[in-house]
């Protein structure tokens, strides 16, 4: 009888611990792809509180530089399959180096291109309050005219005829005619003699390095001078122009690996 008790207890214990384990899931080979953003001012790395010069010769210091990355989609060259990552929103913050590395898990074997949105899609702008990186407490949300600030560039410049010579560009707007979220499409580079992109031979990890050049904010498509437009704090024409400009700030970097 004593043996029986021990036996039953043992069975129950095993059963109990089994119930903690996840049901056997067959996981297809997954790779880790890390997307790393390198914020730049022209060719130089961007550093907060050190001065940069824009294409108009205006010298400025960046105090804050943040932007949302969402709706990422990766494309496989061999199978022509794509993989998207709905519900993943990332706030890239120059002041927080860990925010600049996005880790995703993918089953694609040969990534040839990446597509993502700079900003937050309109649906998330109209469905109340979100959590995580989209929490309004992150300071990237307009309370008086609901909507996300897609990207933010703040600093000081002698060219800004404003209190403390500050300038701040908060770019947002999701409605028709004033949308500031931009889809970015980037082809991955050819590295030496290999085929372009990231190729996984076996489960592993690969990195996509993306440069984001703040100097593009000033003249990529429209000329916007700090002296002329030191503030952007609402949706509208200026925000749209800035968005057109920043849509050109991303390039895939060849110099990392």
């Amino acid at each position, binding site marked *: 009888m004593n043996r029986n008790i021990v036996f039953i207890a043992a069975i129950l214990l095993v059963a109990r611990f089994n119930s903690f384990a996840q049901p056997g899931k067959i996981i297809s080979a997954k790779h880790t792809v890390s997307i790393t953003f390198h914020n730049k001012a022209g060719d130089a790395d961007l550093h907060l509180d050190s001065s940069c010069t824009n294409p108009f010769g205006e010298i400025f210091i960046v105090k804050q530089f943040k932007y949302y990355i969402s709706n990422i989609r990766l494309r496989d060259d061999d199978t022509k399959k794509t993989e998207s990552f709905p519900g993943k929103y990332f706030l890239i913050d120059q002041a927080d180096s860990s925010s600049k590395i996005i880790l995703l898990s993918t089953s694609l074997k040969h990534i040839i291109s990446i597509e993502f949105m700079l900003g937050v899609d309109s649906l998330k702008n109209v469905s109340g*309050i979100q959590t995580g990186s989209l929490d309004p407490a992150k*300071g990237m949300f307009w309370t008086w005219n609901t909507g996300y600030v897609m990207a933010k560039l703040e600093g000081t410049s002698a060219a800004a005829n404003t209190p403390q010579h500050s300038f701040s560009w908060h770019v947002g707007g999701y409605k028709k005619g004033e949308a500031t979220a931009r889809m970015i499409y980037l082809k991955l580079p050819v590295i030496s003699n290999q085929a372009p992109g990231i190729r996984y031979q076996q489960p592993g990890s690969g990195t996509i390095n993306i440069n984001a050049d703040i100097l593009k904010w000033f003249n990529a498509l429209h000329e916007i001078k700090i002296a002329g437009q030191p503030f952007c704090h609402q949706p509208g024409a200026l925000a749209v122009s800035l968005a057109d400009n920043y849509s050109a700030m991303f390039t895939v970097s060849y110099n990392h690996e």
Partner: protein
Amino acid sequence: MKLSRAILFVLLFIFCGVFFMSFNNSPGFKTTPLKFIVPKGWPQPVYDFKNNPLTKQGFELGRKLFYDGRLSRDGNFSCASCHQQFAAFATYDHNLSHGFNNSVTRRNAPGLFNLAWQKEFMWDGGINHLDAQPLAPITDTTEMAESIENVLKKLNADPQYKKMFTAAFGDATINTQRMTKALSQFLVMMVSSNSKYDRVMRGQDSFNLPQQLGYDIFRQKCITCHQPPLFTDFSYRNTGIAVEDFLQDYGRMKITRNAADSLKFKVPSLRNAQVTFPYGHDGRFYSLLDVLNHYRNGVVNGPTTDSIVKNKIPLSNFEIGQLQAFIYTLTDSSFLNDPRFAHRVLKTAHRSHLHSMSIIININKNSEKFLVPALNHWAAFLHRTLVLQTNYKHSAILISIIGICLCSAGNHQIIYANMRRQRSTVKHCAGNIFSR
């Protein structure tokens, strides 16, 4: 043998218990659903209840947040400081409300009721979701002047909130979404649908002659914009108002940046209008009489003035009286006194006693600072009870001035007498009141 059998049973019992618990993912988390009742004949609400199911726990948390001054920078301004229940959650007798550090708001606080039917918020409709609404007054420098981050910090530091967030949402995480969802649960429950007008429509009551005549005039001259049962069509219109020199508020244009929207503001509901005076986006109309006078004499024609009022609305003195009689039938006294929406402190103990107690406590805490708003509050009570029967503006002002004097003279004595007598009990009570 007997012993081992007993051990076996005990073991079986324990394991069964453990098994049962493992099926229940979050032990102890159980909410009590709250039912949202759509009044008969009303349209379906627009608020998305699926995304934020109403529960007793969420509602109670929302109420606590609504009445908590800590949502403001200095702790003095809760949502309820500008949204007072006896004024249908508008600011009683204020054209503009008072905010942080002696500031004054730029717009007239609207009454809060029937929000579940409202798609856009603020006079200019800039806010597109009820959950997003509280963030505007919390962060506005002329209102609560606090950052969302700091509010969350303060809530996180309070074990009572940890408990209430757990009860409402299953764990102690406090974030903006949960805070605003709880507030929304409280706010959407504020349904005002039990005025005399509603009772008449349900066949339970009847209008007297002036009310009936007023209703007929209303249906001819007001109903296009103030559509029952909500008494607004939620459109934005320029009702022929001139821009105010100081505020330079062009309303809807600020949101759309479209010149065609210049000076357009949301049509306000007429429900409970008796207690939400003054009127208009900047509170420029003190009484209903002023509003009606504006429509028959004061309309200023500009490029965006609404075609309905462009040629003014012809109204005789007689008609204005009848209209006023009708509009007063929209006062929902059961809503104005509904204990579910009242500050829990006031519900649980005798009002006036607690009032004086909280004033004593506040004096102890912060000398004069709290005394003045508290007395104003008292004066407003007095004003409400004495003045609402008459409509003569000057006597109203006179009575409220006398009220303030009486209050301040009388209560100073009471307060200081009480202070001496009750000093020992104050701390105890303070603990009770503020821990809720």
